[in-house]
């Protein structure tokens, strides 16, 4: 048992990021509120960023800036952080675009709820088909 606790403590970054990923995924799939879906997307992406950044972390190491030729001391892996920089830019632009679409939808339907929007569309479809049958 102590071994397991130890491995959990040692890998807590990974565990937390996986937990966050699943929370985000679940939010995106199950919530009908569009804003919550976008929040879920952000949680999901942040979880992956946390995962990548923590994979580059070395315990007790310095930032990867050599102070001179003599400086050989353990450095943190800089590549994951560089990847995340790109990832964050992508996530921000995705969020901005998604929010702009949601604003458009709100203007059309006056609702942010995907189920509610589907209901409104269904009702309109029924009304339309009723009109058509009356015309015939």
């Amino acid at each position, binding site marked *: 048992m102590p071994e397991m606790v130890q491995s959990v403590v040692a890998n807590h970054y990974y565990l937390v990021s996986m937990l966050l990923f699943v929370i985000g995924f679940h939010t995106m799939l199950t919530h009908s509120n569009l804003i919550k879906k976008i929040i879920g997307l952000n949680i*999901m992406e942040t979880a992956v960023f946390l995962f990548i950044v923590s994979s580059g972390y070395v315990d007790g190491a310095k930032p990867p800036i050599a102070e001179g030729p003599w400086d050989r001391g353990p450095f943190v892996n800089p590549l994951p952080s560089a990847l995340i920089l790109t990832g964050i830019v992508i996530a921000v632009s995705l969020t901005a675009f998604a929010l702009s*679409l949601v604003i458009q939808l709100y203007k059309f339907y006056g609702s942010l709820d995907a189920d509610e929007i589907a209901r409104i569309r269904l009702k309109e479809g029924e009304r339309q088909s009723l009109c058509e049958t009356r015309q015939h």
Partner: protein
Amino acid sequence: MRNAPALVVVFLFLGAFIIPVAEMKFRKLVPWLVLTPALLSSSLVFVMRARVWSEGPIRFHVGGWAPPWGIEMFVDEYTTTMLTAIFVVAVPVLLYSMASIPHELSPHLTSRYHALNLLLLGSLCGMTMAGDIFNLYVFMEISSLAACGTISAKGSRESVEASLRYFLLSELGSGCILLGIAIVHTLTGHLNMGLCLESMPYAASLAPSNVAAAAGLVSIGLLVKGALFPLHIWLPDAHAAAPTPSSAILSGLVVKVAAFALWRVLNRAFGSEVASSLRIFDIILLMATLGIILGSALALNQVHLKRMLAFSTVGQVAYVFLGLGLDSETAVRGAFLHLINHAVAKACLFLSAGAIWQKLGVSSIQKMAGIGRLMPVTMVCYSLAALSMVGIPPLGGFTSKWYLAKGALEAGRPFYVLVILVGSFLALLYTFPPLASSFFAARTDFRPVGSDGFREAPAAMLVSIVILGAACLIMGMDSSIAAQIIR
């Protein structure tokens, strides 16, 4: 010429960035700014094809930095085949969009739409040539943003809704892909596909479940983007609601590039041993079988022409996945051939549907009766493309389905020959009735939209439809082209 792989992407992106600026002062230049980058890039692809054939794969190191640190672009004969497919479809579609977009979008949006189109094409080329998985992800995100942008360009309720649905599902997929990439990076320490492949057996022996998770996540993400059957739910709305040129590019290219990327990643980053030990190919085959039959069956009971074409894409892209999933030499080549044939045919179909809608205001299948007499050139090209998609002998689709069936037999799986035949029969059922009625049924109560008496679409649109229709015919008649493509 050494920089050709990067320049293909750079030309298209430069065009996309210059257009919104040029629009303010030099509006008349915009058509040239759209077509010039596309033509320049396609000529570079032509040059690269010749070089790949004579000297083997090109590995281009961006900025001169070699792989463990630098970014690699990898071009082999499969890549050039995919790039050829992209430009064979893209150049006519861009030409078409010059004439059709002013009718479909409000004037202040047209140049931005063209910019988005170029951005989409550039990112597709980037996805095709990416030599490392992180760049694949970056280009994929650019492509899904640009694709969502073009889908929502009309600004109507349907298009915004379809765009948001596509966006949410494809981002769900992207999240999975990014997590998969992160796991691969922690396992192997590399992002370059070739280096990942080298250290994958060792990683798989150390942590088999992590490798399985990574491969599964990446596959699921790319299957969502490639719209393989149960994951296709975003496709019909998105492809039907987009402006016509975008429907052609989305149906013809975007889903195919995702299929190509999946095949690339499984073969070049994970290795076929990992993929086959996880039975990923078997799962793809099962989904493709369902997709071929149910996708075509769903296309049968559609009322609107563009929606029918979108559902038929679900069925046809499953053929590509079927070929890639069979994983035998001939079947993969057949898949690539089908990828080009279907891209050309479906682009032609969507463009003709757009032309019919623009000139006659007809968008439903039932009202197509008699159109063949009013717009003979468009409808002849439409029929060529439709029959090529079904797989009628002298046309392109027949060759590719032939190779797919041959590949299935060579892999010792004759069941899939039956699937291919049933799928073709269903495709015939949904394409033939509108074709027959459009030529043979008499109907005269059409009212052309617009005042000009000339019933065919404007020259630019007609020329691009004819080019694509002729391509369907040439691909089938001239077997040397097929042989070159799948050499």
